[in-house]
């Protein structure tokens, strides 16, 4: 049984990732930790608890974490996820449970402190604030992590969020900087991997609804994105970056394109803060000022097998 902590700024696509993880028979989610990002911390925590209920599986503890990025102010993404982060339906049931008292940063450290090295893995589907703070406080315990799978980043030329950066990294580039310098092996699932065929199209959306209540929940909580597509005269579609990051972790065979990279995070430029800067092996040599200290710190995933991803998703949400 693989054990994970999921760190999440639970908005609509995070909810789907949480449902998948909780229903995956090969996985034990030991904790959900929340962070401000798509929505503020309070909503993210509530949405995580709601997602647990709708997953109709087991209930891992939920720990609320950082209320804002390390240095920058919080900028949410309500235009994608709705004011409540879950599509503004007004029909979702209130959560049955409450979050734990302990702060997420301490919870992450304590879980790792009491684990064997390599026993626990971490999946982050929000800004990296909690993880950076945990690294600063106790990097020794954090290094017990087998690895971190991050939904985040994009090649700077192909990006819808900002001119050069992806939301999760851009929301707290200072935290991302610390995480990428931590030495813990990182798998970065970029935005490119989540676009094109990987989005749920109108047929997929209909199919998800037919799979039952859990499938319907996964669609309903993405209603803001669906409505936005329809309002602009397009067929409905949903981007699912966080579920894809989960799937890449759970089923690495869905990856079709990836490369090892020395990845750095730009955090100082007002123009391109949050840019994920990739260097492949050959580029270590051609840069003007060769830095011998460069080593690969990440595996960057830029494309997946959409069919495999979708059947994995369908299989998990089916009641």
């Amino acid at each position, binding site marked *: 049984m693989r054990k994970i902590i999921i760190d999440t700024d639970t908005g609509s696509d995070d909810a789907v990732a949480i449902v998948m993880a909780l229903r995956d028979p090969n996985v034990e989610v030991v904790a959900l930790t929340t962070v401000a990002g798509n929505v503020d911390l309070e909503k993210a925590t509530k949405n995580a608890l709601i997602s647990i209920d709708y997953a109709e599986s087991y209930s891992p503890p939920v720990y609320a974490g950082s209320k804002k990025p390390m240095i920058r102010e919080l900028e949410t993404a309500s235009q994608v996820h709705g004011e409540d982060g879950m599509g503004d339906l007004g029909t979702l049931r209130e959560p049955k449970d409450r979050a734990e008292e302990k702060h997420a940063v301490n919870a992450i450290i304590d879980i790792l402190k009491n684990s064997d090295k390599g026993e626990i893995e971490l999946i982050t589907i929000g800004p990296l604030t909690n993880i950076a703070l945990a690294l600063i406080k106790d990097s020794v315990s954090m290094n017990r992590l087998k690895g971190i799978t991050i939904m985040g980043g994009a090649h700077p030329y192909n990006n819808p969020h900002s001119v050069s950066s992806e939301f999760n990294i851009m929301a707290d580039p200072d935290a991302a900087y610390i995480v990428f310098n931590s030495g813990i092996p990182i798998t970065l699932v970029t935005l490119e991997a989540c676009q094109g065929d990987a989005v749920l199209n109108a047929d997929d959306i209909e199919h998800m609804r037919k799979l039952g209540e859990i499938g319907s929940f996964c669609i309903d909580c993405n209603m803001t994105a669906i409505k*936005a597509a329809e309002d602009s005269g397009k067929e409905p579609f949903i981007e699912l970056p966080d579920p894809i990051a989960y799937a890449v972790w759970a089923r690495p065979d869905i990856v079709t394109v990836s490369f090892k990279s020395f990845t750095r995070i*730009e955090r100082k430029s007002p123009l391109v803060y949050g840019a994920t800067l990739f260097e492949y092996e050959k580029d270590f040599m051609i840069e*003007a000022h060769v830095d011998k200290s460069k080593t690969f710190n990440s595996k960057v995933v830029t494309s997946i097998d959409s069919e495999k991803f979708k059947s994995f998703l369908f299989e998990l949400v089916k009641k």
Partner: protein
Amino acid sequence: MKRRKILIDTDTGSDDALSIAMALREPLFDVVAITTVAGNVPLETATENALMTIDYAERDKPPVYMGCSKPLFRELLTADSVHGKDGMGDLGIFTKSKRKPETEHAVDAIIRYADMGDVEFHTIGPLTNIAVAIMQNPEAMRKIPKITMMGGAIFRGNTGHLAEFNFWQDAEAADIVFNFGIPITTITIEACATPDTRILEEDMLMLKNTGSRLAAFCVDCNSTMAENVFRNSGERYFVTADPTATAVMARPDLIKKSVTSYTRFDIDGEYTYGMTVNDLRKTDSIYISKDTVLKPHNCTIVYEVDGAGFKEYLFSLII
């Protein structure tokens, strides 16, 4: 037929020499002035090389004006490793020109020619002179109908992350020029560095066998680059960044792929100084950060050309 008036701004190293030769030989062009700037080589060397190239092209004009000897803010970092210390391959075989540059500063000459209103600009070095001219006399500079540049990147770059050498050398100047409002077409490093634009060993032999003094000059001044490439890759060829831009200026039909963009240059980043930041986002996506105001596009980026067509055109001019 009315010839197009062209001013060339150049940090004359070996590939600039080809560009100058091409433009002087192109019947469609009337090259009215050459202005020099520090870049590939120091200013004095660039100026000597420009004058020498005019001689080898068997022309007795245009006038050559010396411009800025260093980037606006940063120190000059030349490209000796590519073009040689003398910018022309360090062969010691070329005859220096007896002609002298004009006494007028290049920036003043640029303003004077811009004010005529019918002189197109062609920049194949850092944009220091153009930026200073804009700061000194924006009214005159607004009269420039069009600038065709070699510089910038869209996917990869050749100097750091998404940075290209010409604009990386003086990114502050590049940002000033791109934000000023003169219509810009820039030919990126990706368009110039594809295998089918390379001048191969067989091309070099062919050119030398023609007996053309200019063709031999064009090959010889790039032969050190070809030898460096051979040492690194086992193949003998040289790349022709600036000539690709010159060809596109004369022959827009050689363009295979281009996009319009709102382009800026990073000047503040820890890792991203000189990055070409191309904002290609569409207005109709909800995934754009909130409160984003997309700017009107300020340039056309050419990132792929017809390599075979380019070479044929180049050869026809210099033989």
